[in-house]
């Protein structure tokens, strides 16, 4: 995403002011050196990405493999297999004898793409709606903004519950429900940015040399509005993952048997004393969300000059 936006900047006429994107990148590098939390966050996120990609290599068995004789084993239990070799359940087993460690390792493969999908689809949809509303103005602006207000009047989880209820519980429907909840924030942000940028001189200049509307929106206005939207998106990933895990927890996300963290915690509730069943997947969600929040918190400092020196 970084590169495409930069190439847009590069094709802009030379007399334009230095793009917000470049100054933002510079500020990020400055902040990286100053704020160790961003680095820690990045390391954890990269770590989880690698774990998810190489899950089959890291896992000690199959995520769905059941072994009822070895159910509810405490973490660290080592059992002897029929061929004489031993097998260690690092994080114990669940009520069907599935290896919790393997399931936690595989869990990122569902949660991370789902969270990213919500943010990416939601922010693109919101950006398009916001750009249209801001640039077209008038009746379109009024209509689109009133609609986005309606969506914002419903608290997140209630709207998501209503949508999943209507569509049926399913992984894709959970993502769709969250996109429905997510886009209005971006639409309103991008609209206000477009309104501000629209009146600046370099846009006036582009218009005066007869540039078509499409060129003005996509080449002069949006590249300057995209940086704050990306910052908001980064701030938001943790939130999206949390909400997705919440829907899964309620049984409205991934299918019941799949190794999804929120789902695993939900199953663990019925086995309250077997704390490993809910604690490990819970910590997996928390660590990932925390890492994104560390990054987002640092980025917020970058994007807000009032706190930049703080």
């Amino acid at each position, binding site marked *: 995403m970084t590169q495409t936006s930069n190439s847009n900047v590069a094709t802009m006429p030379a007399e334009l002011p230095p793009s917000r994107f470049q100054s933002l990148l510079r500020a990020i590098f400055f902040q990286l050196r100053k704020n160790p939390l961003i680095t820690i966050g990045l390391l954890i996120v990269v770590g989880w990405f690698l774990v998810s990609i190489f899950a089959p290599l890291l896992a000690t068995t199959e995520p769905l493999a059941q072994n009822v004789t070895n159910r509810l084993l405490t973490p660290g239990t080592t059992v002897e297999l029929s061929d004489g070799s031993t097998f260690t359940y690092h994080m114990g087993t669940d009520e069907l004898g599935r290896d919790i460690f393997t399931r936690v390792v595989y869990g990122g493969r569902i949660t991370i793409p789902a969270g990213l999908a919500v943010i990416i689809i939601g922010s693109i949809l919101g950006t398009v709606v916001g750009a249209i509303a801001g640039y077209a103005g008038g009746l379109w602006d009024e209509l689109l903004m009133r609609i986005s207000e309606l969506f914002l009047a419903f608290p997140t989880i*209630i709207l998501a519950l209503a949508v*999943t209820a209507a569509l049926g*519980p399913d992984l894709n429907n959970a993502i769709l429900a969250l996109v429905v909840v997510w886009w209005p924030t971006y639409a309103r942000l991008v609209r206000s940015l477009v309104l501000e940028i629209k009146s600046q001189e370099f846009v006036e200049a582009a218009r005066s040399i007869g540039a078509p509307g499409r060129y003005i929106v996509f080449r002069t206005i949006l590249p300057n509005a995209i940086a704050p939207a990306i910052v908001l998106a980064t701030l938001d990933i*943790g939130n999206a993952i949390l909400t997705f895990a919440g829907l899964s927890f309620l049984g409205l996300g991934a299918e019941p048997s799949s190794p999804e963290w929120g789902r695993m915690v939900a199953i663990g509730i019925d086995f309250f004393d077997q704390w490993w069943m809910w*604690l490990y997947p819970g910590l997996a969600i*928390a660590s990932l969300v*925390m890492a994104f929040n560390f990054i987002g918190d640092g980025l917020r400092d970058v994007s807000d000059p009032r706190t930049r020196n703080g």
Partner: protein
Amino acid sequence: MNFYTYFLRRLLFVVPLLFGITIMAFLIANAVPADPVTANLPQNALNDEDLVQAFREKWGLDKPLHEQYFAYIGNLLQGDMGRSIKTGRPVIEDIQQFLPATMELATLSIFIGLVLGVGVGIISAIYRNSLIDYVSRMFSLIGVSFPVFVLALIGLAVLYGQLGIVAGPGRLGFRTADPPHATGFFLVDSLLAGDLDTFQEAFSHIILPAFILGAYVAGTIARVTRSSLLEVLGMDYMRTARAKGLGERRVLWHGVRNALIPVVTIIGLSYGNLLAGTVLTESIFAWPGIGRYMFRASTSQDFPAIMGVSMLIALIYIIVNFVVDMLYFFLDPRIRGEGR
């Protein structure tokens, strides 16, 4: 601008929003590939054509969409939200039964969040970049990263399971009868009845969920308080206050008062969110509130209930924010000055 004009202008803004919400709730409820008939009738009844037909007629499922909507609005204006398919009772009665539990929890949570959040926020801003500031920011960052259901489980395992200093799920123990109904808030009702034992029991049940929800709110409030106070501390009028010789304590009070204006907005938003977002907390703590009711309705395609609750919550959300807007009029002198 006088208060009356301000009030009317805001109100004018709210009415179309309310109308839009009914349309949206209705559209969501009807964008259903899932068939409410198959969702709510037992298997043997589905084979009986007459029963299925009677069910469709009863819920108006055989009429065109816009007619269903107008019928719904007509009933709604008379306070009739239809009957819940799941419980078989009028939705409005269900709501009356479940809402007080949620409001009691949300109110106590917002109170805890407010005290904690404003306190920590002010300290963080005054001792900016100190150890206290750093630790409290870390705590709030880590706190908001934990899913509320995981925090709830850890809290239950440690404080209830291991230490036994709080009570477990539910509003009261199995053997305790509900206090006589007055407000629906068990804490208040038990006091009104002079029943201290029940009060104590209700308190030990509510304190853990309220604290967990309150901690979330506190994180947000602390952050807003901190950044808002930092901004105010750098204002010219603070320097003026110091220059004219006010004591540091008076100067600070001056700043805090102004810095808390944005906090009022956050409180309004958080309260609305708490009323709705307690779905997860309520399901873990077996709290018989509106969130659990909504969740049950949404898993059984009980659309009268879903529409009723989502409209009610959106309505509360809007009213709370309307009240916040009204408070702003008194808190922020700039609104009165501007011809906005």
